[in-house]
């Protein structure tokens, strides 16, 4: 009886896992098919592995540029949000400065109502007016809308470190910044790594903001934008093999990161539950 139950459990889990994987397996195997084979159908596995799909998308359809843009966008915006979160979180944990209550209320309030599409247009207009949309290096600045959860995450972490080290630092004459950069920041390395990782994935996957910011400047498109737009161009609509290869290119990096670092990522996501 118990073994039967265990068996049923496994069958259920395996079925769920299979259904979870289907779309990913589909895009993986089908991206290697020729357009001809895609139309006629056939089994999951390609008859002939058409590697040229990838080289065509990469070279002729500018996906190398989009890839570069995606990397810049994700690295800069997640890096900045980590730095800002760490700095603000440290101040929140260590100093009872006047205005703290007001600021934290504002942050929580904005977290509550921060509605993507609602604030997108004013941000877009501001970015255009200030010339931020001209280059992929400045677009990530617009992605940084807030302090949000990162401040409270870091505040909690710094508080959990205790005051001892800061007090010792003060005795040795270390100033505020020294205490932050030399004493606290190194201790924050593990939490920062996890946070950066999650933030990087989120920004790599970001679609709407890069979509809007690249209006009028195709050179700043990221992969997520480029691949969806491919559908609306003459080449892409007719050539699904290219569409699928492009999709795969935008999926591979996050998938690789996830396969290599899945312990940290799953752990970090689970921690989010505890903190929330």
């Amino acid at each position, binding site marked *: 009886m118990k073994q039967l139950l265990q068996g049923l459990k496994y069958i259920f*889990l395996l079925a*769920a896992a299979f259904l*979870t*994987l289907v779309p*990913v397996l*589909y895009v993986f195997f*089908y991206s290697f098919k020729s357009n001809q084979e895609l*139309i006629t*159908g056939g089994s999951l596995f390609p008859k002939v592995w058409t590697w040229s799909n990838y080289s065509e998308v990469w070279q002729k359809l500018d996906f190398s540029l989009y890839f570069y843009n995606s990397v810049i966008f994700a690295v800069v915006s997640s890096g900045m949000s980590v730095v*800002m*979160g760490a*700095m*603000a979180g*440290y*101040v929140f944990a260590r*100093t009872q*400065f*006047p205005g703290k209550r007001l*600021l934290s209320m*504002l942050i929580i309030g*904005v977290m509550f*109502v*921060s509605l*993507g*599409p*609602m*604030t*997108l*247009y*004013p*941000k877009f207009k*501001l970015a255009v007016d200030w010339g931020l949309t001209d280059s992929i290096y400045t677009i990530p600045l*617009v992605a940084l*809308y*807030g*302090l949000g959860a990162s401040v409270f995450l870091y505040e909690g972490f710094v508080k959990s470190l205790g005051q001892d080290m800061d007090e010792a630092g003060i005795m040795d004459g270390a*100033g*505020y910044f020294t205490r*932050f950069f030399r004493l606290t920041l190194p201790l924050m390395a593990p939490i920062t790594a996890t946070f950066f990782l999650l933030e990087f*994935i989120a920004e790599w*996957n970001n*679609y*709407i903001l890069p979509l*809007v910011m690249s209006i009028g400047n195709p050179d700043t498109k990221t992969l997520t934008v480029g*691949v*969806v737009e491919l*559908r609306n161009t003459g080449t892409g609509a007719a050539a*699904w093999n290219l569409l699928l290869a492009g*999709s795969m290119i*935008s*999926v591979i990096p*996050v*998938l690789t990161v*996830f396969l290599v670092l899945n312990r940290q*990522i*799953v752990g970090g*996501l*689970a921690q989010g*539950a505890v903190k*929330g």
Partner: protein
Amino acid sequence: MSKLAAESELAVPSLNPGNRRSFKRFLRKYGPAYLMLLLPVCFFTVFSLYPIGWALKYVFYYYDGVRPERFTGLANLHRLMEDQIYWSSLWKQGLFSLKIFIELPLAFVLALFLYSHLRGRNIFRAMFVMPYILPGSTMALVMYILLNPYNGGLNQLLLKLHLIDQPIQFLSGGWTAFASGMVMDAWQNFGINMLFFLVGLTSIPKDVYESADMDGATGWKRMRYISIPMMGRILQMILFLSILGTLKSMGPFLVLTNGGPNNATELTFLYIFHQFFGGDAGSNYGYGATVAVVTALMLVVISMGYFRLTKKMDYHE
């Protein structure tokens, strides 16, 4: 601190040295903290507070980006009252959030299975979380291809198995398109909820179960009287995040259907997006701001109501 403030207030009229000294003391005490907050707060003000202020202002204006803005009072709100597409989009947004009934039970059952000692549980766990970290827009595009009637994978498979005679037009029918989006969204998000449930289950101390075992509570009873109540706080959070998350998302529909066919999948948030970036020349951004602000207010009311309702679920505090 209040002493300090009072002192400086008294000293304002005659700029005496005492005032300057207290200001210096204030700077020495808080200066570095403010300096460190400067950059984050600047970004917060420019990219968070300013856009909200912008939206609040333009509720009362007509503005199309070309001609000069003009004050129109409550005209935008009047237009909203009569906007059939908006009100039906709200209904669709609510309907869309019903996908948590696919997502959460599945997540809970999987979490229960993975909570027990099981070979390969880490692999299963990673597999279920995986869709969550994939780019949603790209996966929506893949789904669009998969569901295509002519050479999409699903129709090819169903035809081959002789389950259907003709390809199904998933994305051209209103209901099928809507349901496809719900399933896809559930596919992306069940894993993270499973993980949250798993955290909740692990947070229950083992000895509670042991004493329950002694009292002979097993199976369903164990779950009903221990697991679910002890998970109160995390359960509340999962429900809140899922409900609010779906109420303020446009799902995969921007890429999957772009609101079509015939507005069948035009959720409120997609509608707001289309007000600003719909591609129509001369659209009134003031109206877009009105739609956004009214929707935001509704969401604030819903979340406050939710917290009031669920106060009693909080067993731990």
